[in-house]
């Protein structure tokens, strides 16, 4: 195949991809999950087991979502939130069943990554609140993974 044919073929393919794929295909919850897992990576070396199960969805700017999770006293947990929208700002916070902030002070937010650390004082249900604080997109995919040790 000569250089011209190769370039023409690539350009045609790009055009096909641009027109055929829906707008939403620019990012998915699976992409968001890979960013959440990226945030979790350094903690695996510290002995955290990251669960395969995860939560995900999409939110508009300023919207929040709560997920409920059973946590066990004696374990230590990190929750990692990620989105593929690089200019978005997201956050994750953890509350106990009474609605009291339960996370450790080393929880953090860095643009399209955020993480919350909790050492449960009691075994029971906790609320994990995820939020898209700011985003250039109308809807922003998010994924939340967690690990424990």
């Amino acid at each position: 195949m000569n250089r011209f044919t190769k370039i023409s073929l690539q350009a045609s393919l790009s055009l096909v991809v641009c027109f055929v794929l829906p707008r939403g295909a620019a990012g998915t919850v699976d992409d968001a999950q890979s960013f959440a897992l990226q945030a979790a990576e350094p903690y695996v070396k510290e002995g955290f087991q990251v669960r395969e199960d995860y939560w995900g969805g999409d939110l508009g700017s300023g919207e929040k979502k709560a997920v409920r999770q059973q946590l066990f006293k004696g374990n230590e947990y990190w929750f990692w939130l990620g989105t593929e929208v690089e200019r978005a700002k997201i956050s994750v916070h953890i509350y106990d069943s009474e609605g009291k902030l339960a996370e450790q002070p080393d929880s953090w937010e860095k643009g399209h990554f955020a993480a919350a650390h909790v050492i449960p004082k009691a075994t029971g249900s906790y609320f994990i609140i995820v939020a898209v604080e700011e985003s250039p997109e109308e809807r922003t995919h998010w994924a939340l993974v967690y690990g424990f040790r």
Partner: protein
Amino acid sequence: MISFSKSLKLSVIALLGVTLYASATPAPQRIDVKQMSKKVENVVVPLPNEIFGALNKLGSVNWREYVRTEKSSNFTERPRIALLLGTVIADGFIAVQAEDAPAVKEIGQRVLSLSKGIGVGNSITPHAKAITEAADKRKWENVRQELDRTQSSVQAAMNEVHDEKLSQLVSLGGWLRGTQVLSSVVTKHFSADGAELLHQPDLLVHFQTQLQAMPEFNLPIIRDIQSGLGEVKPLVDVGSSHISPESVRRINEITTRLDNGIVTRD
């Protein structure tokens, strides 16, 4: 005295610090749980090893006592296979706690054959192979991870073909076996902290709600589990009080009865 350039640098650093600090959204100290509860997503069911890990920290457990490898009955009803599959995966986590390589390998093969029985064998074959390899090398962390992946893959495959209810039964089977073992360990060596690990009322509600939405699975075992969960709920829903030794013993009786129902033919 600080030079101009140095003070400029310090100001820039201070400004950057303030900007970075300001970019972190301060979390409210309290939220209205009642209001929030309306917007809550489904719970992720904890894996048995998450509970076993917390239990281990309370004192050493003789996990070998709980290893189970004998083959259970063969079923043709898909809901029964799904429940059994969850139970067998939980047995895998117990065998890992006991660091029993032959048991892990046997359980890996059993998981594969049950998955085939329910039509999701293809997605499990690589995990079963990885479980065997990791058990041979006694890489227990890898076995744990593969068991988690196995359950996740089974459920993803079921969800893909809209068998979400079967997927929920896999989680339920695993949770019941985990709770049976947890309550057995705590019955034998009672401690308030150990008993507190059974404080899972929301998970019980979660399973009860799911079972109520499965009227098409009109099987005796499903009805037994429904009534068993109803018996367990008041024993664990104790608010800030402690779960008593008597309650733990009762939970163990109920979950043992249900587990027997899952692994044996009616």
